[in-house]
């Protein structure tokens, strides 16, 4: 099976302090990391290749530094890493981003399955996966939490929703977004890390993949961010409650009562 795992490099979230005034999280000196949800997409691609053979390509659209995340994907065992990098992509919203990725997937040729993480932790939109499916005209399955059936041209998957799940049968080629329940991402080995450092990450431009310039970047984006602002401060100073169990309980339940929460 020829599989593309779409990955994104996002700001890390390791260091933060809480601003005592606004109670907002202040991120400090955060390094870029591989979007946590994408690890599950990568792992599933590996597992499928182990089960039915084939090729796994890690694909990312981003600035040059996104190459480090593609090398991380390579160290997990993907066969190739492809970076879509071009000034023309800058400022893309999810419509333009999914267009670019879909065009690259068509350019790669013969792809049977596209796997994405549920969402990226910076944008949080969860729109790109279904967007890629729509641009390609392929069926989709989102929030995939299990893949019990793998046959040559068809996958049976469990799709999660708020109440439970559906069992879906999807013909390939298809696009799927995956959630944490699906697998346990493997830890890269020393050998695969060393190999990943030596591997070539292919860089493709908009021209390479034959993308229509009108569908890229700021101009190709139906939505535009017109303003950003910090969120309003929480405002309240922390009230400390101490004492024995009964005292604390009484005090907090009183507060909840006053606020009509109980």
């Amino acid at each position, binding site marked *: 099976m020829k599989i593309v795992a779409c990955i994104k490099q996002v700001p890390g979230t390791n260091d933060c302090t809480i601003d005592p005034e606004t109670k907002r999280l202040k991120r400090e000196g955060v390094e870029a990391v591989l979007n*946590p949800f994408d*690890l599950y997409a990568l792992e599933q691609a590996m597992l499928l290749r182990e089960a039915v053979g084939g090729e796994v390509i890690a694909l990312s659209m981003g600035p040059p530094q996104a190459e480090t995340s593609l090398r*991380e994907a390579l*160290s997990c065992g993907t066969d190739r890493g492809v970076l879509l990098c071009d000034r023309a992509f800058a400022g893309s919203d999810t419509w333009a981003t999914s267009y670019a990725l879909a065009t690259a997937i068509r350019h790669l040729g013969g792809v049977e399955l596209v796997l994405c993480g549920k969402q990226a932790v910076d944008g949080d939109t969860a729109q790109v996966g279904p967007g890629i499916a729509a641009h390609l005209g392929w069926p989709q399955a989102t929030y995939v939490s299990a893949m019990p059936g793998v046959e040559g041209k068809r996958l049976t998957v469990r799709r999660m929703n708020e109440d439970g799940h559906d069992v879906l049968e999807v013909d390939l080629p298809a696009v799927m977004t995956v959630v944490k329940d699906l697998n*346990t*991402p*493997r*830890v*890269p*080995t*020393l*050998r695969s*890390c*060393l190999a990943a*450092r030596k591997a070539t990450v292919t860089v493709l431009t908009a021209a390479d993949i034959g993308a229509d310039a009108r569908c890229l970047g700021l101009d190709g984006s139906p939505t535009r961010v017109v303003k950003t602002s910090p969120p309003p401060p929480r405002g309240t100073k922390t009230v400390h409650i101490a004492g024995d169990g009964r005292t604390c309980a009484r005090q907090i339940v009183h507060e909840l009562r006053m606020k009509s929460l109980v």
Partner: protein
Amino acid sequence: MANEPDRVFHVELLSPKQKSPKLEADLDLFAEKYRKVLDAGHVACITDNPMGILSFQGTELIDVLGLPVRPEQVSIHLNTFHTKKDLDGILTQAIAMGIDNLLAISGDGSPRLPKLTGKDIGNAVESVTAVELIRYIHREYPDQFTVGVAFNPYEPPAHEMEKMRRKVDAGAAYVTTQPIIESHETLEQLETFGIPIVIECWMSRKLHLLAECVGYEIPEDTPYDPMANLRTLMARYPHCEFYLALLGFKTQFPLLEQACA
């Protein structure tokens, strides 16, 4: 031919981090330190994803870097943040290499690291700690390993002693402490377990880095002489062995022999 020093130290070797931008240089340095430790007759103790930072495994480092193994001179840390498959892989590889000394710890996790579940190791207990890990090792790989455990004198003593009891019952063969500065009262109680004690000595001048370990703030400029501390510990606890954390290979390693004099 390895040296036979006056005293054998357990020298901690931090495993190289996976995300390092200068991985090849880190690996070379690791190999150099490892060989130095072995040639001097000491024990190389390789960490397992310390502080939850994704690093490389001791067994794969020895394998890929072609490092020599002398069974009495190599110890591998092993924590509970592995898949069962990876855990068995490490243990099997260790046996194949002739490594028989492990330090079993609960360890620190991170979002990137998997975790052993009770189901993995055939236990009714849900969460897996060092105790369950030791039991698993001795059950699945009987008579293959000497397994040590950690002891933290900075946790409430009753709690730590009770944990220690369970670890010993599970088969712990020795105990390595957290860093001790000059002395600690609980070390006497540890002796009641009747197993060898390895005392950790902090070899970095930066004592303030231990703040999280000991549970209180240490000012950054606190004067601290690691070698003097080591000498004090050796004098006070002559029957114990010593585990050297953050040993400076350029400045301190050459002085180790003198420390014993």
